[in-house]
Structures are given as C-alpha cells and as structure tokens.
C-alpha cells in the first residue's frame, strides 16, 4: 500500500545573513496509515522545519522548499495552491505546538476556537459545531466540558490548554497529527497524561502521528519508528526498539546515553550518564560535504571529514548515515 505521507529528497533553504543555508538537506522518509513516528535530535537540527514544510508554513520570504517532494496521499504539497493547502491544514493534517500557554488566542473562549475549525472545514452550523466542541472537550478529558467550553484560555492550566489544542487539532479527524514537542512546557505528571491521551485518541481515530521531540523517553513511549536528525540530515532511522537496543550511529548512541536510567536499588551500579561534547554546528556549516557530526564524534576518522557518509542499511529496517555504522 502507498504510504500516507512520502517525503522525497526534501531540501529546505533558509536565507541567513551569511547566505543561503540548507536547514534540511536531502531528507526522505515515509509515514504509513495509522503509524506513529518520532523525529529526534537537539535544537536546531531541522525537526520543526520539517514539520512546518509539511504544513506549508515555512517562514515567508526566509525559508523555501528548494527541491524534493512532499507527497500526501499522492498529492505533492510543495506545488499545490495556497487554497488547497489551507483546506488541508487543520482538516487533513493538523499540528499542535510546544507552548500551550501562548498557542490559544486569548480573546476567544476555547469553545469558540474549537467550533471555528469545525465551521471552517466541516461546514457545520453554529449549533452543531458547538455540540461537537463540547464532545471534543469531553474526549480530551476536560471535566465538566459543558461549562468549561465557555472559559477563556487564561482560566485554564497549561495541561488543560494543551488538551484544548489537541481537541482543536483532532476536531476534523485529520489523517496526520504533527506534534511539535507537545509536552516540553508541561510538568512531568501532566506530560504522562498528555501522552496517554494522545495514545488513546490515536487508537480511537487511527490518526497517524509525527512527534517531534528531544526526549528519548517520549519516543520509546509514543512511536514505532524514529528518525534521528542531525544538522538538517537524517542520521539514523529505524524501529524504536531496534535503535534503542543497538544504535548504528554514534549520535544516536550519544542521545540514548544522555537519558538517566532509574534503578530500583539506590546502591546498584548505574549506567554512566554521558554527554555529547560540543554543540550543533551553525547554519553556515550545514550542507558541507562531510559528516557534520564529525567534530563531536568519538569514532571520527579522516574519511568522515572528507565526504558525506552514505546510508548503510541494517536488516532492511534500520538505516544509518555513518561511515562506521558497521562498527558502532
């Protein structure tokens, strides 16, 4: 079966003061019907740019799709009209953002904001949209939805606001939900609740989810497959379980070893907690013909500094863009 979303050789260029930089450099991936994938990587690796490109929301005048295709149900989103894109946004592909505190419009009640999407995309009347909005608030487990629907965003907590955002995003039963670090701004306990909610809603609606995060724990909890991004390139891709069991890219390995493991007994030996030295290169260095991770890599060799690594495939499912993937 054709995948729901197929991104082919996507290259996104950003205009910077120093010139044009490829924030996304030759990225390809697929998302199946009902599948959940995760994009992982540090800040500035191009995760959010990928999401915005799919939504057709790259910063105007600054970012553009330079080459490649984004095929959604066979339709290339990089060339469709603005009108068609607006139809798709919020209806067939929707998105939730990192900051629930500022992602809701402060001057409208949450009910109005949910009903608005339904009216715009589903041609529902005022009454039907309102009834549906109440149901959605109930579905995202906001207690007493009939009353809370008249609340303004300032009357809600961060977790509740993120639930409202999820209600808005799922209102039109989209085929794809893009969640850009949906829990980064929330308390740990609330994070768990939001993940539970997303998992349950996914089971009920069959929506495919693209989750962007830098939290390996969230990945393990939410996704079947993961794509590790580094400096605008795909470093590694594969099933979450396989990658956590045996990462084939030193960067992935570094990310995994950054996550503390809880041990049952405090006196037990813990796995050493390491960090990846250095930082993500600046935009100016993106796109060079070498392994961009080489400056931080513990296994670096001359080859890494001279040529961009080719992708090595393992077991037909796991792919790593590293010259030394075999040895990792």
């Amino acid at each position, binding site marked *: 079966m054709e995948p729901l979303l197929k991104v082919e050789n996507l290259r996104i260029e950003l205009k910077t003061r120093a010139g044009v930089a490829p924030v996304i450099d030759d990225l390809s991936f697929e998302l199946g019907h009902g599948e959940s994938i995760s994009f992982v990587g540090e800040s500035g690796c191009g995760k959010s740019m990928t999401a915005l490109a799919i939504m057709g929301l790259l910063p105007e005048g600054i970012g553009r799709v330079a080459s490649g295709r984004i095929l959604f149900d066979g339709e290339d989103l990089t060339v469709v009209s603005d009108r068609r894109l607006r139809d798709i*946004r919020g209806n067939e592909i929707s*998105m939730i953002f990192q900051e629930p505190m500022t*992602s809701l419009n402060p001057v409208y009640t949450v009910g109005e904001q949910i009903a608005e999407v339904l009216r715009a995309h589903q041609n529902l009347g005022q009454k039907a949209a309102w009834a549906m909005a109440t149901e959605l608030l109930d579905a995202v487990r906001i207690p007493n939805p009939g009353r809370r629907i008249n609340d*303004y965003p*300032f009357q809600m907590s961060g977790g509740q606001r993120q639930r409202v955002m999820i209600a*808005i*995003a799922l209102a039109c039963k989209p085929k794809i939900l893009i969640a850009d670090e949906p829990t980064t701004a929330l308390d740990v306990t609330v994070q768990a609740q939001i993940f539970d909610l997303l998992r349950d809603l996914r089971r009920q609606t069959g929506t495919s989810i693209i989750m962007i995060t830098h939290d390996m724990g969230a990945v393990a909890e939410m996704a079947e497959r993961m794509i590790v991004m580094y400096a605008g390139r795909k470093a590694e891709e594969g099933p979450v379980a396989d990658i956590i069991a045996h990462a084939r890219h030193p960067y992935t390995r570094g990310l995994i070893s950054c996550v503390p493991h809880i041990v049952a007994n405090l006196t037990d030996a813990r796995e050493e907690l390491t960090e990846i030295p250095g930082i993500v290169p600046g935009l100016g260095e993106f796109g060079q013909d070498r392994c961009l991770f080489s400056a931080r890599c513990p296994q670096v060799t001359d080859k890494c500094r001279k040529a961009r690594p080719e992708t090595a495939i393992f077991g037909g499912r796991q792919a790593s863009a590293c010259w030394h993937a075999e040895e990792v």
Partner: protein
Amino acid sequence: MSDETFHTPVEKARSPLAEAWEMFRQNHLAMVGLGLLILIVLGAIFGPILYPTDPYEMVWAPFSPPGAEGFLLGTDYLGRDILAQLLNGARVTLIIGLAAAFVTVVIGITIGAMAGFYGGAVEEFLMRFTEFFQVLPTLLFSMVIVSLFGASLPMITFAIGVVSWTAVARITRAEFLRIREMDYVMASRASGAPGLKLMFTVILPNSLPPIIVQSALMVGSAILFEAGLSFLGLTDPNVVSWGQIIGSNRQYILEAGYTVTIPGLAIFITVLAISLVGDGLNDALNPKLRKR
C-alpha cells in the same frame, strides 16, 4: 472527585477586562475625567430638552453678562442665550469629535493592518504614503479641504479624519508586527485560517488596546481641531458648535470676554476629561508601561 473541586481554583482567575477595570478604578485622575465626561455627555443629550430655549433666537439685549437678567451665562453679540448655545453645541462638538475619530480609526486601521500583515513592498509603500500625510501641515491641509469642498459638517469631519489618521496607522502596524509572530497566530494558520480572517479576527482583536487608547485621545484632538477651524470661520454658520460660538464672537473678545471664555472653558474641560480617561485607559490596558 466532584466537579466543584476542579472548579474552585479556576473561578478565581479574573478576566483581563476585569483586571483593566480594576486598574482604571484605582486611578483617581482617570475616574475624575470619566465623571466629567459622563456629565458632559448627559448635558449634551438631555440639556437641550431640559433647557428648551432656542439657541438661534435673539432672547435679550446683546452682551448681557452672565447672571444678569436671568440668563445664567449671558447673551452673545446677537443677544442669543449662551447657555442654550453651549448645550446644543455640545451635541455637535461631541458628534464631530467622535465621527472624526471614527474616520481616523477606520483609515488608520485599514492602512496599518495591511502594512503590518503583508509586509514587504506593500508595507514599504503604505508607510511612505503615511509619512507623506504625516509631514503635511495638518491645519493648513484641512483648511484647504474645507474651503475647496464647502464647510458642511460631514466635510469638516472628513477633513479632520484625513489629516490625523497617521498615528493610528503607525500604532496598528507596530501592533500587527508584534502580534503576527505570536504562537496563536501560527496555530490559527496551522488550522487553515485564510489571510483576511487572520488579519481581522485573530490579530486585530489582540492589537486593540493601544488603538483604543489612541482613538480616545483622537476624540479630544478632533474637538480642538474643529474649534480651530471654526475660529478661522471655516464652519457651517447655521450649526452651533463650541468652536463656532468662539469664532462668531471673536471680534468682541475685548468688550465681552465671557462670550469666548465660556465655550473655551467647555472645550478645555472636555478635552482634559478625554485625555485623563485616555491616560487611564493607557495605564489599564498596557500593563507593561504601568510598571515603569
């Protein structure tokens, strides 16, 4: 767990509007201004009904000083009752002030919103256009409009509006530039809102506070403007407004000073009240300025 347990902490959150009113109420000067303004508006609405003397009719000998012969504020050079003129003129003056401010806001918001929202060449063009209007000598320009197209009230209102919209346009543009980058605007885009909807239902309502403040102050300056034009004789002589009272009596300023002083005071108090309310609104609606 009952619903009530969920609700208790939430009910305490106050709406931004309630908070703004609380701020405004604690500002004594603003409250004084508001009180004065309410009195003036009530006077304009009910005054002519409660004091039905015809403002255009000669009721007594000209130049009767205030208090004499039973006319509280005296009579003007044609023997017309100044109190009656003042009460009737209040309607015209306030209506011109509000209407001119309205024209200002409509032009200003349209131009500012388009400049701030679309950016690029559109913004460049619209802002140069605004600057062109900004450097025109305002009084002179409005005099030209009024003398070319006739001194009717709508034309005077239009003339005032056309020369004073630039401040509103600049404020609107600045707010649009700021709000455009907000997360909720991105979220609205992501749910498929088209440009016009973003402009007028998402960004505009959130940019309103400073625009409201500016428009309130605009009413005051429009009243002053009208008075200036009237003083120069550029007004409809058949309609009594405060500026027109001053204008028609200005030749007698030395013999009967009260004929110009009284409407002058009325303008002064009204504009002061509007400024006080405007300042109060500014403090209440822009919490960031308040803390300075």
